[in-house]
Structure formats: C-alpha cells, structure tokens
C-alpha cells in the first residue's frame, strides 16, 4: 500500500506541475489566437493524460488489494472493495472532466477577449467535448468495467 501511495503522490505532483507549467504558458505571453488555442489544447491533453494515469494507478492499487485477498474470503468483503474502488475511480474521472471543462471555458473566454475568430472558440469547444467524451468512456467502459469483471472472476473461483 505504501508503494501505491507513492505512485499516487507522484501522479498528483505531475498533474500539479503540468497545470502550473501550462498556466504560466497561457498567462505569460502568447496572445495570438493560434497560440492561445494551442496552449488550451495542450492543457486539456495534459489534464486528460494525468487523469488516465491516476485511473491506472487506482486500478493497479485495486489489483494489488485483490491479490492479497484469499480465495476463501467472503464475497461481501470483495464487493465492498469493488464499491469503494468504483467510487474513487468516479471521483478521479469526474474531477478531471470538471477541470477540463474549466480549462476550456477559460480559454474560450480568453479567445473572445482577444477577438479571435469564432472558429477558434468552436474548435476549442469541439476539442473539449471530444476529450471529455473519451475520458468518460474510458472511466466507465475501461476502468469501472475492469473492476466489475474482477468481481465476476472472484465470485466464480
């Protein structure tokens, strides 16, 4: 469990670093619509990648916890572990989606402020929708589904 905590701390530090770096890049100078839109895209991708890594770390922690559970353990304990993992995965995914939406809104506001063509704001919004949809699908159909599949596998032992 100590190892997993270390991994989580590492992921959190990475996210923070990326956000600070991107925030500096956005606030520091680029004023042309192309630069602003590109910086926005980078920030959204970074947030998505950080969330994906955090989801992966959570799944690794879950696998480690499952491997420590003996085959004779009662189903109730395993179901409880699955439910707790699902809640944590959901929080990671939803927080990342909220952060991506916030980042995109900030960018769109900035693009409007500098008088960028509507194609830039539309493009940023389309990018936001795409990233959020992929992340949402990855949360449900990949991470949560993997936990549910492990529940089935354990009960079938």
């Amino acid at each position, binding site marked *: 469990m100590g190892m997993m905590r270390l991994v989580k701390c590492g992921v959190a530090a990475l996210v923070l670093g990326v956000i600070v770096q991107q925030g500096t890049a956005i606030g520091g100078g680029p004023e042309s619509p192309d630069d602003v839109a590109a910086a926005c895209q980078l920030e959204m991708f970074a947030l998505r990648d950080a969330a994906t890594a955090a989801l992966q770390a959570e799944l690794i922690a879950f696998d480690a916890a499952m491997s420590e559970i003996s085959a004779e353990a009662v189903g109730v304990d*395993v179901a409880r572990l699955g439910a707790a993992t699902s809640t944590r995965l959901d929080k990671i995914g939803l927080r990342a989606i909220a952060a991506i939406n916030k980042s995109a809104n900030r960018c769109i506001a900035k693009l409007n402020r500098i008088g960028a063509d509507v194609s830039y704001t539309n493009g940023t919004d389309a990018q936001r929708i795409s990233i959020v949809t992929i992340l949402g699908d990855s949360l449900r159909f990949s991470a949560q589904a993997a936990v549910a599949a492990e529940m089935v596998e354990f009960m079938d032992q």
Partner: protein
Amino acid sequence: MEVFKARNAALVAVGVLLAAIATVWAGAPALTPGEVAAECMADMDEQYALALDRMTTEYLSFAATMNALPIETPVPRAFKLFSGECKKLDAIARGGSSKIQKIGSKCLTKLGRLGAEQQLLDDVATALDGHVDDLAIELRRTYQKEAADRLSTFVQSN
C-alpha cells in the same frame, strides 16, 4: 349374584381407565436411531431448500432493480447496490447454515444418547457438512456471481 356382576363390571371399567391413563402417560412409542436420523436429515434438507428459495427470491428482486436502473445512474451507485445485495445474500446463507448446524448437532447428541451406531452418526455429520458447504458454494458461485454478472452488464451497457 347381581352384586358380583356389578362389582366385576366396575373393576373392568377401572382397569380400562388405568390402561388408558398408562398409555397417555408413556407417550408415543420411542423412535429408533434410524428414524431419528432420517427425521433430522429431512429437517436439514428442508432448511437447505428454504435458504436456496430465499436467495433466489432476493436475487430476482435485485435483478429487477438492476434492470430498472436508468442508464445514466452513476456507476458507484450500481456498485453499492451490488455490495448491498451480496450482504443480504450472505445473511440468508449464514442464517440457513446456522439452522442446519443447530439441527445437526442436536440430532448427533440425541443419537449419541440413544447409543446409535457410528455409521449413522457419520451419515448425519456428512449430511450436515455437505449442506453447509453446498450453501456456501451456491451463495458465491451462483447467487453472488450472478449479481456480479448483472453489475458488469450494467457497467458495460450504453
């Protein structure tokens, strides 16, 4: 002569009455060890079947709830429903096992008192362990596994 006849009739009546009282007092004829064992095993079978029935009812109710769950329901909510269902099924199985164990151990004590043969005691003990083990297997591999399958289907549906 008439006096003798009346006295004999009275004596017969008293005799019949005493015989009736003695029969009631003694109760039903004692069961043989074989009959006691058969009765216990039937009771254990009944408790086993009852526990399975209850788990089936519980699972069907869960399946209906999951089927009615809107697709937009957050996944953690579905996991919580599943976890709660596992707990309910576990409680039913444990309750059933506990009743079976109570019947079995009472039976073994009674058979021991009656001086039953070792083979009969072993048969009852085997039936007791078998029912408890089977109930645990059914709980997990059938009911909890089916519940997990339902959960998995919900998570993967869009």
